[in-house]
């Protein structure tokens, strides 16, 4: 476990994270995650975070070393899409039993790796540590090393057992595994001056495919997306990219920054949520690539594409403006999505009555303030009861959140839209913004709301039904 703890401290010390740098040495050691409150905690563990970050690599086998709960209760439940191999959706686990707990599970793990390689022959195997196997002292690094030597394939240990912390920490530890064992271990077949990495994008609901046509049009090649719809080889050879975009705020900052440090790949932080954010991201990509030697005309071609796509998106959105103007949204989500979605929704006249900032950085909060004004409701931690009250009292017309709070809205008989990782719609880029607005419109204007909010007629005393009226159809 010493290895994990060192890594955790290293991740907590991330110099690329300005929030972290503002802290004192002692505070920094405690880490960037709030202490969890027993009996009042929500959210996934570090293992969950590691799996979220790496499982989108589609052609490798992801083996979970632990008891059945870790994989059996959760496999194939995420929305990262693949354009090729479906192996990533196969659930592999050592499903350890009592004997393994007593005698150790290393041998079982080794044999499990062998079985998977014999049966599925993936280009690489990722092995995830969990709490129980961590606690009994199984050294997954040693097992992976032995298996790598024996089978001649990369076997990557991902040491992020659930009990070391939150999902966010798990994202970062997953990034460390990529830095230590994957990135820079292979070479791309060819390189171009327009190769980029997109880091922290998981291709949920296929969002990467809303962006890729834009990049293709500009002749920009995504050398590796880390990790949405990625092949192992792409991630392994991603160190040859000319520039990088960091998408999901701080989740993979360690990967992005260390790739700059090790391989000189400059990066910027951007978002593909919202029209102006998408345009900004494209501009930044072009700017960085030109700085690194891509042809100058990339800049002007990018501007032309932005102009065309923005115009096309606004044309498609214009019909919603009237229908959505003044509609009030309660936006409950983590981190980066808050401010970028806020600006996007405001673009069509939607009013944001409140947003959560639980996972946001100080910088994120400042941006929300700039967008929503000083009187904006920013909730550090909005209890479900409060959410329900706000909706029941119609302080908002619709809630956008993750699946967990879905039923708070629906039970209050209020429209709700999924914007989290299990969502079925893709909301990235210009296309995605149009979809998001369409979905909000569909939710708000569905005819069910009038019906489900009506109390049963026998419960309302105001208009006693008369049989005569019913017969004659004049109720």
């Amino acid at each position, binding site marked *: 476990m010493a290895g994990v703890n060192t890594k955790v401290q290293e991740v907590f010390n991330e110099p690329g994270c300005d929030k972290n740098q503002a802290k004192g040495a002692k505070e920094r050691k405690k880490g960037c995650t709030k202490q969890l*409150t027993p009996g009042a*905690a929500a959210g996934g563990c570090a293992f969950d975070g590691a799996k979220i970050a790496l499982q989108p690599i589609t052609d490798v086998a992801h083996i979970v070393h632990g008891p059945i709960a870790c994989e*059996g*209760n959760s496999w194939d439940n995420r929305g990262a899409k693949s354009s090729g191999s479906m192996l990533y959706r196969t659930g592999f686990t*050592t499903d*350890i039993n009592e004997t393994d707990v007593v005698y150790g599970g290393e041998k079982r793990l080794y044999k499990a790796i062998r079985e998977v390689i014999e049966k599925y022959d993936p280009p690489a195997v990722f092995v995830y540590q969990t709490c*129980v196997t961590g*606690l009994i002292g199984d050294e997954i690094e040693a097992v992976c090393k032995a298996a790598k030597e024996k089978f001649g394939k990369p076997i990557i240990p991902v040491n992020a057992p659930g009990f070391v912390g939150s999902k966010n920490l798990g994202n970062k530890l997953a990034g460390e595994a990529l830095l230590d064992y994957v990135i820079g271990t292979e070479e791309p077949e060819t390189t171009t001056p327009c190769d980029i990495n997109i880091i922290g994008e998981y291709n949920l609901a296929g969002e990467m495919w809303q962006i890729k046509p834009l990049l293709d049009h500009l002749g920009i090649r995504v050398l590796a997306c880390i990790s949405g719809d990625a092949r192992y080889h792409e991630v392994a050879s991603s160190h040859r990219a000319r520039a990088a975009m960091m998408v999901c705020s701080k989740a993979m900052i360690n990967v992005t920054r260390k790739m700059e440090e090790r391989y000189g790949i400059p990066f910027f932080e951007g978002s593909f949520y919202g029209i102006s954010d998408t345009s900004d991201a494209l501009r930044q990509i072009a700017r960085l690539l030109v700085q690194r030697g891509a042809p100058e005309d990339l800049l002007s071609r990018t501007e032309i594409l932005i102009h065309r796509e923005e115009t096309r998106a606004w044309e498609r959105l214009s019909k919603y403006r009237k229908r959505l103007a003044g509609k009030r949204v309660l936006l409950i989500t983590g981190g980066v999505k808050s401010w970028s979605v806020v600006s996007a929704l405001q673009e069509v006249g939607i009013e944001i009555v409140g947003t959560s900032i639980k996972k946001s950085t100080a910088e994120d909060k400042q941006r929300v303030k700039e967008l929503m004004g000083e009187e904006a409701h920013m909730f550090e931690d909005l209890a479900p009861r409060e959410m329900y009250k706000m909706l029941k009292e119609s302080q908002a017309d619709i809630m956008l959140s993750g699946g967990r709070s879905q039923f708070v809205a629906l039970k209050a008989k209020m429209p709700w839209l999924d914007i989290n990782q299990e969502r079925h719609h893709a909301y990235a880029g210009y296309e995605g913004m149009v979809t998001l607005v369409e979905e909000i419109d569909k939710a708000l204007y569905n005819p069910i709301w009038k019906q489900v909010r009506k109390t049963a007629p026998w419960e309302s005393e105001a208009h006693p039904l008369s049989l005569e009226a019913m017969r004659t159809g004049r109720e």
Partner: protein
Amino acid sequence: MAIVTTSKKFCSVNPLKMSQPIGGALAFLGIANCMPVLHGSQGCTAFGLVLFVRHFREAIPLQTTAMNEVTTIMGGRDNIEQALLNIYKRAKPEIVGLCTTGLTETKGEDIHGDLKLIRERNPELAELPIVFVDTPDFKDAFQDGWAKAVTRIVEELVEKTEETIPGQVNLLPGSHLTSADLEEIVETIEAFGLTPIVLPDLSGSLDGHIPEQFSPTTIGGTTVEQIHSMGGSLATIAVGQQMESAALELEMRTGVPYTLFDRLTGLDANDRFLMFLSGLSGKPVPLKYRRQRSQLADAMLDAHFYTGGKKIAIGAEPDLMWSVGTLLADMGCEITAAITTTHSPQLEKMPCEEVVIGDLEDLEMRAKGCDLLLTHAHGRQASERLGIPLLRIGIPCFDRLGAAHKLTVGYRGTRDFIFEVANLFLEHTHEGTPDSWPLPEKYDDPVTQTTAA
């Protein structure tokens, strides 16, 4: 009669099994105003929560003691205490169900002693019923966790009484029964003038209704008061082999005799059930069931053309596999693959050659050439690869609506389930083409040769 084997693999591929603690938690979700808690890392709870939310499409109250590396090694008493105090303060439950996990069981804790101490230290918790269950993830499976939780609830909360409450019966349903199943069974029991107490009662909490007010705990289910009174019932009806231990515990504590129904799907099973209720209540079987029985018999007649000789592959927990598998065998289907999650006395009785305690890879390998797959929603990948239709049974069912309202018990439930299965066979009938029935390329029979010449 089947030979029961355990998959010899080192790596489970595409798990069929879910863990014991969340089986226990689901049992607690059938108790009114309850807050189930998993004593483990917060991920243990998060995974279970997401699984149930996606299956039931309901808010799921489920908390965690949020153990970390240090507290695991030092012992979790403080975390349990804090969790209980926070839950008591925020959610005001009438009962808390505490399931251990692999994490805390690996360390080994004296929860019983810890709870005693916590109650002493915090007088506000003194009266709060707290039922804890040992449910390590690395042993047994989902239905075992459910069964253990119900047994523990009986141990902790059922009181022995001298007086019998007229007409009251206990119903202990297995985890394989849905809200709709429970409603059907309850309606049947009530038709004989009896009043059932269902433990646990998911049809009260997770049947997908809209409560008047927000509640951070369960929004229905068996009340603690009802559980207290179960010792005064006339009889206990246990449905599913998994419930026998809880029924036995109840009988030993209170003297209420139990009768086990291994399944309530199928003609014979329901005949037996109605005769039992008739005997218990002293009332004749109501007319409507005579009609329903006749409808079921007619459905069997109509469907047998399509079900007879069909090969099915089934992957489910023991009691669900038993009810669905034996019904389909009763309809003339051949069970070519039977995969399950954990041991049960029912496994050897299965009407097939082999039952494997394994995973969905084992099912997929054996299902080639079958006509129908029956398993939970995770069977969708195998179904696609094999080109065999999938009928979703059990938990989780995350890609179809209405899982809680799927009815497979009673005459009506059996009837509709038979129709559903037969319709799938009908839909996937292989029709003949001009090339379907070729003659052999060459006759090796000399007589025929001569005649031809």
